[in-house]
Protein backbone atom coordinates (compact mmCIF):
# COMPACT_ATOMS: atom_id res chain seq x y z
CA UNK A 1 0.00 0.00 0.00
CA UNK A 2 1.21 3.48 -0.72
CA UNK A 3 2.51 5.64 2.10
CA UNK A 4 1.45 9.24 1.90
CA UNK A 5 4.52 11.31 1.13
CA UNK A 6 4.38 15.04 1.65
CA UNK A 7 6.93 17.48 0.37
CA UNK A 8 6.95 20.11 3.05
CA UNK A 9 10.73 20.42 3.09
CA UNK A 10 10.77 21.78 -0.44
CA UNK A 11 8.46 24.58 0.71
CA UNK A 12 6.03 24.03 -2.13
CA UNK A 13 3.04 26.11 -1.15
CA UNK A 14 -0.21 26.00 -3.06
CA UNK A 15 0.73 29.34 -4.63
CA UNK A 16 4.02 27.88 -5.89
CA UNK A 17 2.23 24.94 -7.41
CA UNK A 18 -0.35 27.12 -9.10
CA UNK A 19 2.52 29.06 -10.65
CA UNK A 20 3.96 25.68 -11.65
CA UNK A 21 0.65 24.90 -13.37
CA UNK A 22 0.87 28.06 -15.48
CA UNK A 23 4.53 27.36 -16.31
CA UNK A 24 3.70 23.81 -17.31
CA UNK A 25 1.12 25.09 -19.81
CA UNK A 26 3.57 27.68 -21.19
CA UNK A 27 6.07 24.90 -21.95
CA UNK A 28 3.56 22.49 -23.53
CA UNK A 29 2.97 24.00 -26.94
CA UNK A 30 -0.73 23.31 -26.65
CA UNK A 31 -1.71 26.94 -26.99
CA UNK A 32 -0.83 29.98 -24.90
CA UNK A 33 -2.16 30.29 -21.35
CA UNK A 34 -4.53 33.01 -22.56
CA UNK A 35 -5.90 30.77 -25.32
CA UNK A 36 -6.40 27.80 -22.97
CA UNK A 37 -8.18 30.11 -20.53
CA UNK A 38 -10.32 31.45 -23.39
CA UNK A 39 -11.21 27.90 -24.48
CA UNK A 40 -12.39 27.38 -20.90
CA UNK A 41 -14.42 30.60 -20.93
CA UNK A 42 -16.18 29.59 -24.16
CA UNK A 43 -16.70 26.04 -22.87
CA UNK A 44 -18.26 27.38 -19.67
CA UNK A 45 -20.29 29.93 -21.59
CA UNK A 46 -21.77 27.35 -24.00
CA UNK A 47 -22.64 24.92 -21.21
CA UNK A 48 -24.17 27.65 -19.08
CA UNK A 49 -26.06 29.36 -21.91
CA UNK A 50 -27.59 26.07 -23.12
CA UNK A 51 -28.41 25.17 -19.48
CA UNK A 52 -27.10 21.62 -19.87
CA UNK A 53 -25.38 21.99 -16.51
CA UNK A 54 -28.74 21.74 -14.77
CA UNK A 55 -29.61 18.72 -12.63
CA UNK A 56 -32.87 18.41 -14.58
CA UNK A 57 -30.95 17.92 -17.84
CA UNK A 58 -28.53 15.10 -16.91
CA UNK A 59 -30.51 13.38 -14.14
CA UNK A 60 -33.55 14.04 -16.36
CA UNK A 61 -31.87 12.13 -19.18
CA UNK A 62 -31.11 9.29 -16.75
CA UNK A 63 -34.86 9.18 -16.04
CA UNK A 64 -35.53 9.47 -19.81
CA UNK A 65 -37.56 12.62 -19.20
CA UNK A 66 -35.13 15.01 -20.93
CA UNK A 67 -33.11 14.53 -24.11
CA UNK A 68 -31.41 17.91 -24.57
CA UNK A 69 -28.01 16.58 -23.44
CA UNK A 70 -27.82 13.60 -25.84
CA UNK A 71 -29.20 15.70 -28.72
CA UNK A 72 -26.54 18.36 -28.19
CA UNK A 73 -23.74 15.84 -27.61
CA UNK A 74 -24.57 13.74 -30.68
CA UNK A 75 -24.88 16.82 -32.87
CA UNK A 76 -21.50 18.14 -31.70
CA UNK A 77 -19.90 14.72 -32.31
CA UNK A 78 -21.52 14.22 -35.72
CA UNK A 79 -20.46 17.60 -37.08
CA UNK A 80 -17.00 17.51 -35.53
CA UNK A 81 -16.18 13.97 -36.70
CA UNK A 82 -16.52 14.86 -40.40
CA UNK A 83 -14.85 18.27 -40.16
CA UNK A 84 -12.02 16.97 -37.95
CA UNK A 85 -11.25 14.02 -40.23
CA UNK A 86 -10.71 16.24 -43.22
CA UNK A 87 -8.88 18.81 -41.12
CA UNK A 88 -6.44 16.11 -40.05
CA UNK A 89 -6.04 14.90 -43.66
CA UNK A 90 -5.19 18.48 -44.65
CA UNK A 91 -2.59 18.67 -41.89
CA UNK A 92 -4.50 21.15 -39.75
CA UNK A 93 -4.84 18.91 -36.69
CA UNK A 94 -3.65 15.60 -35.25
CA UNK A 95 -5.27 12.52 -33.76
CA UNK A 96 -5.16 12.17 -30.00
CA UNK A 97 -6.89 8.82 -29.67
CA UNK A 98 -7.25 7.22 -26.25
CA UNK A 99 -6.31 3.54 -26.00
CA UNK A 100 -8.79 0.70 -25.48
CA UNK A 101 -8.15 -0.38 -21.90
CA UNK A 102 -11.15 -2.65 -21.78
CA UNK A 103 -11.57 -3.37 -18.07
CA UNK A 104 -10.89 0.25 -17.18
CA UNK A 105 -13.41 1.48 -19.73
CA UNK A 106 -16.13 -0.89 -18.56
CA UNK A 107 -15.63 -0.57 -14.78
CA UNK A 108 -14.97 3.16 -15.12
CA UNK A 109 -17.96 3.63 -17.41
CA UNK A 110 -20.30 1.87 -14.95
CA UNK A 111 -19.08 3.95 -11.99
CA UNK A 112 -19.25 7.10 -14.12
CA UNK A 113 -22.77 6.41 -15.38
CA UNK A 114 -24.10 5.66 -11.89
CA UNK A 115 -22.56 8.79 -10.40
CA UNK A 116 -23.68 10.98 -13.31
CA UNK A 117 -27.30 9.91 -12.73
CA UNK A 118 -27.10 10.63 -8.99
CA UNK A 119 -25.12 13.88 -9.10
CA UNK A 120 -26.82 15.09 -12.28
CA UNK A 121 -23.50 16.55 -13.48
CA UNK A 122 -20.30 15.38 -15.08
CA UNK A 123 -16.78 16.70 -14.48
CA UNK A 124 -17.25 19.27 -17.27
CA UNK A 125 -20.68 20.59 -16.29
CA UNK A 126 -20.15 20.35 -12.50
CA UNK A 127 -17.80 23.34 -12.22
CA UNK A 128 -20.24 25.45 -14.27
CA UNK A 129 -22.98 24.63 -11.74
CA UNK A 130 -20.68 25.59 -8.91
CA UNK A 131 -19.98 28.88 -10.71
CA UNK A 132 -23.71 29.62 -10.65
CA UNK A 133 -23.97 28.96 -6.91
CA UNK A 134 -24.95 25.28 -6.50
CA UNK A 135 -23.59 24.27 -3.11
CA UNK A 136 -24.61 20.60 -3.45
CA UNK A 137 -22.36 20.30 -6.50
CA UNK A 138 -19.51 21.89 -4.57
CA UNK A 139 -19.91 19.10 -2.02
CA UNK A 140 -19.79 16.65 -4.93
CA UNK A 141 -16.57 18.29 -6.11
CA UNK A 142 -15.02 17.81 -2.66
CA UNK A 143 -15.93 14.13 -2.98
CA UNK A 144 -14.36 14.22 -6.45
CA UNK A 145 -11.08 15.68 -5.21
CA UNK A 146 -10.92 12.95 -2.55
CA UNK A 147 -11.64 10.41 -5.28
CA UNK A 148 -8.75 11.89 -7.26
CA UNK A 149 -6.56 11.66 -4.14
CA UNK A 150 -7.43 7.99 -3.56
CA UNK A 151 -6.85 7.22 -7.24
CA UNK A 152 -3.43 8.90 -7.13
CA UNK A 153 -2.37 7.22 -3.88
CA UNK A 154 -3.36 3.71 -4.93
CA UNK A 155 -2.76 3.97 -8.68
CA UNK A 156 0.24 1.64 -8.89
CA UNK A 157 -0.99 -0.87 -6.30
CA UNK A 158 -4.66 -1.12 -7.13
CA UNK A 159 -6.10 0.93 -9.97
CA UNK A 160 -3.53 0.28 -12.67
CA UNK A 161 -3.81 -3.52 -12.37
CA UNK A 162 -7.62 -3.13 -12.26
CA UNK A 163 -7.64 -1.32 -15.62
CA UNK A 164 -6.13 -4.34 -17.35
CA UNK A 165 -4.45 -4.67 -20.68
CA UNK A 166 -3.99 -1.88 -23.20
CA UNK A 167 -5.43 -3.09 -26.52
CA UNK A 168 -4.11 -0.14 -28.47
CA UNK A 169 -5.53 2.95 -30.11
CA UNK A 170 -8.08 2.05 -32.75
CA UNK A 171 -10.48 4.27 -34.68
CA UNK A 172 -13.53 3.25 -36.69
CA UNK A 173 -12.16 4.15 -40.17
CA UNK A 174 -9.11 1.94 -39.50
CA UNK A 175 -11.46 -1.05 -39.32
CA UNK A 176 -12.57 -0.46 -42.92
CA UNK A 177 -9.36 -0.08 -44.91
CA UNK A 178 -9.97 1.36 -48.35
CA UNK A 179 -13.31 2.83 -47.27
CA UNK A 180 -12.06 5.40 -44.75
CA UNK A 181 -13.80 8.41 -46.29
CA UNK A 182 -17.08 6.56 -46.69
CA UNK A 183 -16.89 5.34 -43.07
CA UNK A 184 -16.32 8.88 -41.82
CA UNK A 185 -19.23 10.26 -43.82
CA UNK A 186 -21.60 7.46 -42.78
CA UNK A 187 -20.59 7.82 -39.13
CA UNK A 188 -20.83 11.61 -39.09
CA UNK A 189 -24.13 11.77 -40.95
CA UNK A 190 -25.75 8.98 -38.91
CA UNK A 191 -24.72 10.52 -35.59
CA UNK A 192 -26.05 13.91 -36.74
CA UNK A 193 -29.32 12.29 -37.81
CA UNK A 194 -29.57 10.50 -34.46
CA UNK A 195 -29.21 13.88 -32.77
CA UNK A 196 -32.03 15.31 -34.89
CA UNK A 197 -34.36 12.33 -34.57
CA UNK A 198 -34.05 11.68 -30.82
CA UNK A 199 -37.46 12.89 -29.65
CA UNK A 200 -37.14 16.19 -27.83
CA UNK A 201 -38.21 15.76 -24.21
CA UNK A 202 -37.75 18.39 -21.56
CA UNK A 203 -37.83 18.37 -17.79
CA UNK A 204 -38.13 21.94 -16.55
CA UNK A 205 -37.13 23.45 -13.24
CA UNK A 206 -40.06 25.16 -11.51
CA UNK A 207 -37.63 27.55 -9.85
CA UNK A 208 -36.65 28.90 -13.31
CA UNK A 209 -40.14 28.84 -14.80
CA UNK A 210 -41.70 30.79 -11.94
CA UNK A 211 -39.74 33.86 -13.00
CA UNK A 212 -41.39 33.88 -16.42
CA UNK A 213 -44.74 35.34 -17.43
CA UNK A 214 -47.28 32.57 -18.09
CA UNK A 215 -47.51 33.02 -21.85
CA UNK A 216 -43.76 32.58 -22.35
CA UNK A 217 -43.45 29.45 -20.22
CA UNK A 218 -42.12 26.73 -22.53
CA UNK A 219 -43.94 24.02 -20.55
CA UNK A 220 -47.35 25.60 -21.16
CA UNK A 221 -47.14 25.78 -24.93
Amino acid sequence: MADIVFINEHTSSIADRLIGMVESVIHQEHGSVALVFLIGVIFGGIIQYTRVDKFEKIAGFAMLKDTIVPKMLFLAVGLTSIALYFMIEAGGAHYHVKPIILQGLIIGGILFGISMAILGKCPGTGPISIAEGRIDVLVGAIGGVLGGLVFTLYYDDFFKPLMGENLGKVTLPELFPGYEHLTVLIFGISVTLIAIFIPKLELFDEADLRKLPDETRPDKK
Partner: protein
Amino acid sequence: MFNRLPWWMGGILMSGLLLLTFSIFGADRPIGSSTYVPYFAGIIFDLNPEKYSYLKHIEAPGSWEGIMLLGALFGGFITSVFITKSFRFSLIPTGWKTYKNNSVASRLLWSFFAGFIMIIGARLAGGCTSGHFMSGMSQMAISAMIFGGVVMMALVVTGRLFYNLKEKR
Protein backbone atom coordinates in the same frame (compact mmCIF):
# COMPACT_ATOMS: atom_id res chain seq x y z
CA MET B 1 -37.84 35.20 -23.22
CA PHE B 2 -36.51 31.97 -21.76
CA ASN B 3 -32.84 32.80 -21.56
CA ARG B 4 -30.97 29.98 -23.16
CA LEU B 5 -29.62 28.71 -26.45
CA PRO B 6 -31.44 25.89 -28.25
CA TRP B 7 -29.73 22.46 -28.28
CA TRP B 8 -28.75 22.68 -31.96
CA MET B 9 -27.02 26.01 -31.44
CA GLY B 10 -25.19 24.52 -28.45
CA GLY B 11 -24.13 21.53 -30.56
CA ILE B 12 -22.84 23.71 -33.38
CA LEU B 13 -20.96 26.03 -31.02
CA MET B 14 -19.48 23.09 -29.12
CA SER B 15 -18.40 21.56 -32.42
CA GLY B 16 -16.68 24.84 -33.33
CA LEU B 17 -14.90 24.91 -29.98
CA LEU B 18 -13.76 21.28 -30.37
CA LEU B 19 -12.37 22.03 -33.84
CA LEU B 20 -10.60 25.17 -32.59
CA THR B 21 -9.04 23.18 -29.75
CA PHE B 22 -7.95 20.32 -32.02
CA SER B 23 -6.57 22.63 -34.69
CA ILE B 24 -2.84 23.36 -34.89
CA PHE B 25 -3.80 27.04 -34.82
CA GLY B 26 -5.57 26.40 -31.51
CA ALA B 27 -4.27 24.02 -28.90
CA ASP B 28 -3.50 20.93 -31.03
CA ARG B 29 -5.10 18.67 -28.43
CA PRO B 30 -8.56 17.43 -27.41
CA ILE B 31 -10.80 18.98 -24.75
CA GLY B 32 -10.85 17.06 -21.49
CA SER B 33 -12.22 17.85 -18.10
CA SER B 34 -11.50 15.13 -15.58
CA THR B 35 -7.69 14.96 -15.40
CA TYR B 36 -7.58 18.29 -13.58
CA VAL B 37 -9.29 16.72 -10.54
CA PRO B 38 -6.44 14.42 -9.43
CA TYR B 39 -4.07 17.22 -10.52
CA PHE B 40 -5.74 19.61 -8.07
CA ALA B 41 -5.88 16.85 -5.43
CA GLY B 42 -2.09 16.68 -5.79
CA ILE B 43 -1.84 20.44 -5.25
CA ILE B 44 -4.30 20.61 -2.34
CA PHE B 45 -2.79 17.66 -0.47
CA ASP B 46 0.72 18.72 -1.42
CA LEU B 47 1.70 15.36 -2.90
CA ASN B 48 5.13 15.07 -4.46
CA PRO B 49 4.87 14.20 -8.19
CA GLU B 50 8.24 12.47 -7.93
CA LYS B 51 6.76 9.94 -5.51
CA TYR B 52 3.48 9.29 -7.26
CA SER B 53 3.74 7.92 -10.78
CA TYR B 54 0.19 8.98 -11.59
CA LEU B 55 0.84 12.66 -10.81
CA LYS B 56 3.92 12.59 -13.00
CA HIS B 57 1.90 10.91 -15.72
CA ILE B 58 -0.84 13.60 -15.71
CA GLU B 59 1.41 16.66 -15.17
CA ALA B 60 0.92 18.05 -18.69
CA PRO B 61 -2.80 17.33 -19.30
CA GLY B 62 -3.64 18.13 -15.66
CA SER B 63 -2.14 21.61 -15.77
CA TRP B 64 -3.67 22.33 -19.20
CA GLU B 65 -7.12 21.33 -17.98
CA GLY B 66 -6.51 23.25 -14.75
CA ILE B 67 -6.16 26.51 -16.70
CA MET B 68 -9.14 25.58 -18.87
CA LEU B 69 -11.18 24.90 -15.72
CA LEU B 70 -10.37 28.35 -14.33
CA GLY B 71 -11.62 29.78 -17.62
CA ALA B 72 -14.75 27.62 -17.46
CA LEU B 73 -15.55 28.78 -13.92
CA PHE B 74 -15.11 32.39 -15.03
CA GLY B 75 -17.16 31.91 -18.20
CA GLY B 76 -19.89 30.04 -16.33
CA PHE B 77 -20.05 32.69 -13.60
CA ILE B 78 -20.21 35.64 -16.02
CA THR B 79 -22.85 33.93 -18.19
CA SER B 80 -24.98 32.97 -15.18
CA VAL B 81 -24.90 36.48 -13.74
CA PHE B 82 -25.32 38.56 -16.90
CA ILE B 83 -26.98 36.37 -19.53
CA THR B 84 -29.03 33.51 -18.10
CA LYS B 85 -29.46 35.32 -14.74
CA SER B 86 -29.53 31.89 -13.10
CA PHE B 87 -26.96 32.63 -10.39
CA ARG B 88 -28.38 31.73 -7.00
CA PHE B 89 -27.11 29.78 -4.03
CA SER B 90 -28.97 26.53 -3.60
CA LEU B 91 -28.47 23.27 -1.72
CA ILE B 92 -30.93 21.00 -3.46
CA PRO B 93 -32.14 20.90 -7.08
CA THR B 94 -35.88 21.15 -7.78
CA GLY B 95 -35.75 17.87 -9.70
CA TRP B 96 -34.29 16.11 -6.66
CA LYS B 97 -37.23 17.34 -4.56
CA THR B 98 -39.70 16.12 -7.18
CA TYR B 99 -38.21 12.72 -7.91
CA LYS B 100 -36.15 11.85 -4.79
CA ASN B 101 -36.76 13.63 -1.49
CA ASN B 102 -36.76 16.98 0.29
CA SER B 103 -33.79 16.24 2.52
CA VAL B 104 -30.77 18.51 2.09
CA ALA B 105 -28.64 16.04 4.07
CA SER B 106 -29.59 13.24 1.68
CA ARG B 107 -28.73 15.37 -1.38
CA LEU B 108 -25.36 16.44 0.06
CA LEU B 109 -24.37 12.92 1.12
CA TRP B 110 -25.33 11.44 -2.25
CA SER B 111 -23.51 14.29 -4.04
CA PHE B 112 -20.36 13.62 -2.07
CA PHE B 113 -20.55 9.89 -2.74
CA ALA B 114 -21.32 10.38 -6.44
CA GLY B 115 -18.50 12.91 -6.85
CA PHE B 116 -16.09 10.45 -5.26
CA ILE B 117 -16.90 7.49 -7.52
CA MET B 118 -17.32 9.75 -10.57
CA ILE B 119 -13.66 10.77 -10.55
CA ILE B 120 -12.46 7.24 -9.85
CA GLY B 121 -14.63 6.02 -12.73
CA ALA B 122 -13.43 8.73 -15.11
CA ARG B 123 -9.78 8.11 -14.28
CA LEU B 124 -10.18 4.32 -14.65
CA ALA B 125 -11.68 4.86 -18.09
CA GLY B 126 -9.16 7.56 -18.98
CA GLY B 127 -11.72 10.26 -19.74
CA CYS B 128 -15.17 11.67 -19.11
CA THR B 129 -18.01 13.17 -21.11
CA SER B 130 -15.62 15.72 -22.62
CA GLY B 131 -12.52 13.60 -23.18
CA HIS B 132 -14.21 10.40 -24.30
CA PHE B 133 -17.70 11.23 -25.45
CA MET B 134 -17.09 14.54 -27.24
CA SER B 135 -13.40 14.51 -28.15
CA GLY B 136 -13.01 10.73 -28.46
CA MET B 137 -16.15 10.03 -30.48
CA SER B 138 -15.31 12.98 -32.74
CA GLN B 139 -12.14 11.09 -33.63
CA MET B 140 -14.24 7.94 -34.00
CA ALA B 141 -12.14 6.23 -31.33
CA ILE B 142 -13.37 2.75 -30.43
CA SER B 143 -12.40 3.37 -26.78
CA ALA B 144 -14.81 6.33 -26.66
CA MET B 145 -17.63 4.29 -28.20
CA ILE B 146 -17.21 1.53 -25.60
CA PHE B 147 -17.17 4.12 -22.81
CA GLY B 148 -20.15 6.00 -24.24
CA GLY B 149 -22.22 2.81 -24.53
CA VAL B 150 -21.42 1.62 -21.00
CA VAL B 151 -22.08 5.06 -19.49
CA MET B 152 -25.44 5.46 -21.25
CA MET B 153 -26.59 2.06 -20.00
CA ALA B 154 -25.41 2.63 -16.42
CA LEU B 155 -26.93 6.12 -16.48
CA VAL B 156 -30.38 5.03 -17.61
CA VAL B 157 -30.49 1.96 -15.33
CA THR B 158 -29.48 4.10 -12.33
CA GLY B 159 -32.01 6.76 -13.27
CA ARG B 160 -34.73 4.11 -13.29
CA LEU B 161 -33.74 2.53 -9.97
CA PHE B 162 -32.58 5.56 -7.99
CA TYR B 163 -35.43 8.02 -8.59
CA ASN B 164 -39.18 7.68 -8.07
CA LEU B 165 -40.21 8.32 -11.63
CA LYS B 166 -43.83 9.20 -11.01
CA GLU B 167 -43.93 11.17 -7.86
CA LYS B 168 -45.75 14.27 -6.66
CA ARG B 169 -46.72 15.75 -9.98
